[in-house]
């Protein structure tokens, strides 16, 4: 039994609107859908005439519909906007590379300029590499933080007035629920705002804020829009999945709950007594940040240093992690120095800073202490037989250079420019662990030349760098 369209236009209804339950025919549905977005844009005062707007396009249904509707409304109501597409390539094989093709098709269909930025260019890491490093949990944190900064950078490059994202009503409701579950007060306050942004940043608007995801899918389907519909391969492990499952269950029971949740979010406010982070600028990359160093820099730091948990969890703990890391480096450094000194002392006894050249190398101890963990301060601890002296054959050319520079007979001066980094191959180096290069630490030693063993990767020369990426929190 055909149901007539609710608007009274005479045609038969083709579908039932999930939002209000009214049965509408296709054309009236299109009209209603588009007009609601128009209402959102005008009432919310999102754009001004003549603005240039970047549409954040991922190739998925939300951004495709957003681009289509914005273009339609721009012409129909004369917004006078200059629209362009901005896309981010996170480097997820099987997902992003396919969806980028869709974005390119959008560019052709809607005749908009397109700019693509990739994580690889901006940060030096693709998401696949990141996941290989950190495992399957907390991926969304990295991806989301990096993407937002990438969008900001892209928008700055394109010199636009604002960025339009395709967040729909379901997304916002999920975010409210997720923030309540996690106790994230600061975000709870911001997440329902239709336009987010502050001084000095390019604002982001959500024209689709009150449109249900189901209606977006139906619109795209009936209009035969081209979009990419596969879920991100890393998504199933996200915490947001829980909030989404709850929302879907609730929507089945009471479809208006989505709007109710959004309304609750809009009318909630943080009590004055609660302290919120204040906004400032990252000291390293100059982007907006609530901490001294922005999250993207912290995450990158963690990736580069092999500390995958650096950005995850409390930011106060990040500082502690780094201090521990540096302390470890320093400690292994100190132990290395100590061992080298002891080595030296065993070979040449030092009294009052002067090198003893007497033949006091006693031959008491027969066994060479391989672990080098002697606590004895006395010289000549019986390491006499160790042929560590410089007149041994030295095959390493770097060492040769060092020897040439620093000489053998007198102790090298201890000034920072002549510091040599030495990697000593004994059990202490296990603590160094994940150091990706040996330039990270140096040995402050008087006579390292004598202790230089057949090592392959001593640092050739004064590397002077204490830690790569000197951080202070």
């Amino acid at each position, binding site marked *: 039994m055909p149901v007539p369209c609710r608007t009274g236009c005479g045609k038969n209804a083709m579908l039932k609107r999930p939002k209000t339950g009214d049965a509408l025919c296709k054309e009236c549905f299109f009209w209603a859908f588009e007009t609601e977005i128009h209402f959102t844009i005008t*009432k919310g005062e999102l754009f001004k005439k003549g603005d240039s707007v970047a549409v954040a396009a991922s190739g998925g249904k939300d951004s495709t519909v957003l681009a289509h509707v914005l273009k339609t409304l721009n012409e129909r109501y004369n917004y006078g906007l200059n629209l362009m597409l901005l896309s981010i390539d996170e480097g997820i094989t099987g997902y992003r590379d396919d969806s980028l093709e869709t974005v390119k098709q959008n560019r052709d269909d809607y005749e908009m300029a397109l700019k693509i930025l990739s994580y690889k260019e901006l940060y030096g890491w693709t998401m696949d590499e990141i996941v290989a490093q950190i495992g399957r949990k907390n991926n969304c944190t990295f991806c989301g933080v990096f993407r937002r900064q990438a969008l900001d950078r892209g928008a700055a490059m394109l010199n636009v007035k604002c960025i339009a994202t395709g967040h729909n009503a379901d997304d916002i409701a999920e975010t409210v*629920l997720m923030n*309540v579950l996690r106790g994230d007060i600061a975000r709870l306050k911001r997440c329902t705002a239709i336009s987010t942004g502050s001084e000095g940043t390019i604002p982001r608007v959500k024209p689709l804020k009150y449109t249900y995801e189901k209606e977006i899918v139906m619109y795209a389907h009936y209009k035969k829009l081209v979009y990419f519909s596969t879920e991100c391969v890393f998504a199933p492990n996200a915490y947001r999945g829980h909030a989404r499952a709850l929302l879907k*269950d609730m929507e089945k029971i009471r479809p208006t709950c989505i709007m*109710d949740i959004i309304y*609750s979010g809009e009318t909630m406010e943080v009590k004055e007594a609660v302290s919120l982070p204040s906004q400032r600028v990252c000291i390293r990359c100059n982007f907006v940040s609530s901490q001294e160093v922005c999250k993207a820099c912290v995450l990158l730091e963690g990736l580069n240093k092999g500390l995958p948990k650096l950005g995850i969890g409390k930011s106060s703990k990040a500082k502690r992690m780094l201090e521990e890391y540096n302390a470890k480096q320093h400690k292994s450094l100190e132990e290395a120095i100590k061992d080298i000194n002891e080595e030296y002392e065993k070979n040449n006894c030092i009294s009052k800073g002067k090198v003893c050249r007497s033949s006091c190398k006693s031959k008491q101890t027969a066994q060479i202490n391989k672990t080098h963990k002697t606590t004895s301060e006395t010289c000549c601890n019986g390491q006499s037989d160790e042929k560590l002296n410089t007149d041994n054959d030295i095959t390493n050319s770097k060492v040769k250079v060092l020897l040439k520079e620093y000489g053998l007979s007198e102790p090298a001066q201890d000034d920072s420019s002549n510091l040599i980094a030495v990697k000593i191959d004994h059990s202490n180096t296990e603590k160094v662990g994940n150091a990706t290069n040996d330039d990270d630490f140096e040995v402050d030693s008087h006579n390292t030349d004598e202790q230089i063993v057949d090592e392959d990767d001593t640092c050739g020369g004064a590397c002077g760098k204490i830690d790569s990426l000197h951080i202070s929190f």
Partner: protein
Amino acid sequence: MICRKCSGPGSLIIRKEYCYCNDCFITNINHKFRACIGKNKILSPNEKVLICLSGDASSTVLLDLIHVGLSLNNHKKLRVIPYFLHIIERDSEGEEISKVIVEQCKNYNFNITLVNIDEYFNKNILCNDNTMKNHYQPSISKNVLLNIPTSISEDVLTKMKQNIFIKIAKQLKCRIIFTAETTTLLATRLLSNIAIGRGSQVENDIGFADKREENVKILRPMRDITNEEIDHYLRIKELNPATDILGKGYGTSLQSVIRNFVLDLQENYPATVSTICKTADKIGSVTDNVNKKKCIICQSNLDCNQLNLTAVDATMFSRKVSSKVINSNENLKHIEEGNNLMFPFIYEKLCYCCSRNISQLNDPMLQTLVCRNDDK
């Protein structure tokens, strides 16, 4: 298992890690109860307090804790003059539950007042001890509750009960009301309230004190105690609650979905429930209602139509756009009419949620009945 307080042999484990012996556990629960009341400094000595019991497990524990507090004979004695109240709901088990509660109170030598939920619709509630209304009359409240979707029936019921609590408290001249909501229940309620649109009322609905009524405050002294602890307490003290279901629902509703969700999540992330309650403590509301207009049903401050664009506008617009053929653009501007069908009386007499609830009561008679409190 070693009790972490007295290092004696432990007998139970809560939150998967913490081990206690029976005595230390009971002391702990008592301490939580008293500390919750004490730190907010709302009670004055020898205050008359109305204690509302629903018959479920947490009510039973509340009754016991009050009894323990009153029986102390030192400076720690709980200095209140208690009055007990139970509201009989008109479903099939209502009568049996009330009988069990009366028994429980007799064991402690307490007097309890029983009131029927239909009294909500009366102006002055007769306050006779231990009387029950003639249950052959058709129950108005049952009518109401059957006619609305299950998701909001729990909400409507809670509001009706609160209304009765306040009326009785005023009649008995009590300034304070105690209710027995636990952490788990409050966490579920927070999410449910957000899902039905009561986000701005979180502070009063979930916080320790509900201060909406001027002279009467509703306190929740058990809000730091979880359901797990309640179960252990009952087991140790060998008490039996009148009903088995904590916060029962009526079939599949938003609340039941959320309850299952929270309990499941609590398994994997044990901090869920306490995080949610902590979040509730930090949320206030946006409205700066200078006129102090209150919703006639739930007494919350009415949200002002302050923001440029809210979900209310969007929903009303959707309804408009879906219902008439609108070809010209002029009509788009006049959507905020006063008394529209989707949100009757919103911003004027009712808050968002109560307004939606009313619009879903099919019978217009019922609508007016529920709104009766308007002419106070």
